[in-house]
C-alpha cells in the first residue's frame, strides 16, 4: 500500500517526508544531516547540463517510484562462497547487520551517531556533490568501523549489500572506516539485488587512512541485476599510507562510480584499478579523481572496459596536482574494447597540474578486438566466439591478476570470461 501512497507525489516530496522522519528520530545527527539535506535540495539531482554528468542521464531512473522505507527482505540471497568469512557485515535493504561478528578488540564497529562531535563535524562536511550529500542525509544507520593502531588483519572484512525489497526502493548505505596508525586491512564490498525490482542504491564509503595505514579495497558490482547503483568512494591519505582500490562492474541498469583519492600527506601511494563489462543496454560510468595535495606522492591508475551490445560506458579520470605537490608521480590509463558496433565509450582524461616538477602520463584507447589475433586463434580450430572469449579474458587478466585474494581472483576470472 505504501507503494501506491507515494506513487503520485514527486520524488522530492517523498524524500522530504522521509528525511523529516529520519531527522526526528536521530537527535544526535539531526543538525549534521539537516545541513546535508539542505545542500542537496539547493542543487537537486544532477542533469546532463552538469559537465560531470554529461553522458549519464539520471532522468530515466529518477522518474520512477521508489519506496524510501525499509521492507523486510523477500528473498534471501546468500553470498558467494568467497564472501563468507568471520568478518562479514551485511546490509540488507536498509540496515546493517553486525550481529554475530567474531570481533577482536582490535576492531570496533559502532553506529556513526555514537562517535565524537569532532568526528561528526568532519564526516558531514567532506562531500561536495549532491548525491553524496543526499546519501549522508538519508543514511540513518551509517556505520563506523575503526581498525585500531598496530592491527594487521589477515582476513578481509567483507561487506555485502543486498537489496531484496517488496517494491522498488531507493537505499542509502553509508560506511566509514578509520584505519589508525600502522595498520593493514582489506575490504570487499559487494552489491547485489534480486531480479524482481529495479531499485536504486546511492551508497557512500569513506576510508580515513592514518600514518602507515595500508588499505586494499574491492568494490564488486556483479549481481545488481536490473537495479542501478550510484556509489561514492573516498580515500583520505595521511603520511606514508597506501591504498589500492579495484572496482569490478558487470551488472546493473545504470552504474555511476565516483571515486576520490585524496593524497593529503607526503609519501602516500595509491593504485586504482577498474574493470567493467557492459552488455545489453547497461550504462557504466566511472569518474575518478586523484588529488595530489603535497609533494612526493604516487598514483597509478588503470581502468579497462569491455562493452558489448547496445551498452555504453564512460570513463573520466581527473588528476589534480596542487602547487605544493612537487615530485608527484601520477599515471593513468584507460583501455576499452568494443565488441559490437552499437556499443559506445566516452573516455576523458583530465589533468590539472599546477606544480612543475612532476611526472604524469595518461592515455585512453578504444578499439575492437585485434583481427589478426582472432584470425590466429581461428586458424588453430577455435571458433570465432571462443576466440573472442579468449581475447576478452586476456584483456581482463591485466586487472584480475592483481587481485591478492585467490578465491576472489578465480571467481572474477570466470565471471569476466564473457
Amino acid at each position, binding site marked *: 500500500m505504501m507503494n501506491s501512497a507515494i506513487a503520485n507525489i514527486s520524488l522530492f516530496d517523498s524524500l522530504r517526508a522521509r528525511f523529516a522522519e529520519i531527522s526526528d528520530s536521530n537527535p544526535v545527527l539531526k543538525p549534521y544531516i539537516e545541513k546535508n539535506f539542505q545542500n542537496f535540495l539547493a542543487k537537486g539531482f544532477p542533469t546532463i547540463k552538469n559537465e560531470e554528468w554529461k553522458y549519464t542521464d539520471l532522468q530515466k531512473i529518477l522518474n520512477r517510484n521508489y519506496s524510501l522505507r525499509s521492507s523486510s527482505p523477500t528473498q534471501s540471497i546468500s553470498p558467494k562462497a568467497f564472501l563468507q568469512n568471520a568478518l562479514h557485515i551485511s546490509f540488507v535493504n536498509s540496515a546493517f547487520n553486525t550481529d554475530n561478528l567474531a570481533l577482536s578488540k582490535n576492531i570496533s564497529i559502532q553506529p556513526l551517531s555514537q562517535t565524537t562531535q569532532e568526528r561528526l563535524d568532519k564526516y558531514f562536511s567532506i562531500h561536495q556533490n549532491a548525491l553524496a550529500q543526499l546519501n549522508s542525509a538519508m543514511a540513518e544507520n551509517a556505520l563506523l568501523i575503526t581498525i585500531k593502531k598496530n592491527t594487521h588483519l589477515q582476513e578481509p572484512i567483507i561487506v555485502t549489500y543486498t537489496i531484496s525489497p517488496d517494491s522498488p526502493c531507493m537505499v542509502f548505505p553509508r560506511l566509514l572506516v578509520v584505519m589508525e596508525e600502522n595498520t593493514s586491512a582489506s575490504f570487499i564490498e559487494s552489491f547485489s539485488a534480486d531480479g524482481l525490482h529495479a531499485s536504486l542504491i546511492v551508497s557512500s564509503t569513506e576510508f580515513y587512512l592514518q600514518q602507515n595505514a595500508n588499505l586494499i579495497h574491492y568494490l564488486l558490482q556483479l549481481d545488481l541485476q536490473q537495479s542501478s547503483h550510484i556509489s561514492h568512494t573516498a580515500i583520505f591519505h595521511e603520511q606514508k599510507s597506501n591504498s589500492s582500490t579495484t572496482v569490478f562492474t558487470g551488472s546493473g541498469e545504470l552504474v555511476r562510480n565516483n571515486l576520490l583519492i585524496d593524497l593529503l600527506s607526503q609519501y602516500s601511494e595509491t593504485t586504482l584499478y577498474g574493470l567493467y563489462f557492459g552488455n545489453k543496454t547497461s550504462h557504466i560510468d566511472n569518474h575518478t579523481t586523484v588529488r595530489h595535495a603535497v609533494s612526493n606522492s604516487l598514483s597509478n591508475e588503470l581502468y579497462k572496459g569491455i562493452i558489448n551490445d547496445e551498452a555504453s560506458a564512460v570513463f573520466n579520470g581527473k588528476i589534480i596536482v596542487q602547487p605544493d605537490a612537487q615530485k608527484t608521480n601520477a599515471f593513468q590509463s584507460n583501455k576499452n574494447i568494443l565488441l559490437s558496433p552499437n556499443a559506445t565509450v566516452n573516455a576523458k582524461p583530465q589533468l590539472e597540474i599546477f606544480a612543475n616538477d612532476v611526472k604524469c602520463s595518461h592515455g585512453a584507447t578504444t578499439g575492437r578486438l*585485434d583481427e*589478426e*589475433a582472432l*584470425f*590466429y*586463434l*581461428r*586458424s*588453430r*580450430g*577455435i*571458433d*570465432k566466439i*571462443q*576466440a573472442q572469449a*579468449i*581475447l576478452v*579474458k*586476456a*584483456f581482463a*587478466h*591485466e586487472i584480475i591478476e592483481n587481485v591478492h585474494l585467490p578465491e576472489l581472483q578465480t571467481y572474477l576470472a570466470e565471471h569476466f570470461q564473457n
Partner: protein
Amino acid sequence: MLVIDNIHARIGEKEILRGVTLEVKAGEVHAIMGPNGSGKSTLASVLAGREEYEITEGSILFNGKNIADMSPEDRAREGIFLAFQYPIEIPGVSTINFMKTAVNEVRKHRGLEPLDAPAFLQLMKEKMELVEISQSLLKRSLNEGFSGGEKKRNEIFQMAMLEPKLAILDETDSGLDIDALKIVANGVNKLRNKDNAIIVVTHYQRLLDYIVPDFVHVLYNGKIVKTGTKELALELEAKGYDWIKNEYNNVNA
C-alpha cells in the same frame, strides 16, 4: 588432397593472386619459392581462410570439399595448418591455454573424445620433445618477447599438436640458426607420413636439404610461372630469379 584451380584473389582494389593452379597429393612435399612480394604469403593466407582476401575467380578443393567459403576454424578442423611467416603476439594468452581448446576442437571434429588434463599434458610433453621447446616458453604470453627462432619453433610445436593433413610452412626457416633449423626440420620430417602433405614456402635451398621437396614451384607476379623438381631450387640458388622473370615477361610481352 588439395586442388587449387586458377585462383584469383585480391585485397581491396589490388589483385595479388592472378590465377594460381596447383595440385598437392597426400604424401607429397611442395616447395614454393619466388621473389619478395610475389604472393606466397597471400596464397598461404587464402588457403587458411583469411577473410580480408576476396577470391574473385577459381576454386580450392580440399579432400574433395570446396573450402573457399569455409571459416578459418573449419579449415583447421578439416586439417589445414598454417605456420605463419610473422607469428603475432597475443598478450595474456599463453600457448598452453589456447592449445587445449584448439586440440579438443579438432578432435571433436574428427569424432574423438576430448583429452582430459593429464592426457593433454602427456601429448604436450611428447610434442615439446619433438621440437625441443621448453614448457616455460609455452606458459608465457604468446610470442611476447620471444626470439625470432622461438616464435618459429612454437609454430611447429602447434603443428605437431594438431597433426594436420596439410601443413603450410611460410618461411619457417627464416630466423632460425643452423641447429634450430635442423631441429625444426627433423620435427617436421617425423610428422610426415603417406597421408599428409606439406607446402614449404622458402627463399633458401638450406631448408630443402632437410625437408626434401617432390616439387618446386616459382610464384611470380601472382602466378606459378615454373615448376620443377628439387634441382630447380639449386638452380635458383645459383642464378637468382632474373632468368625466370625474363622468360615470363618475354612470353607475356
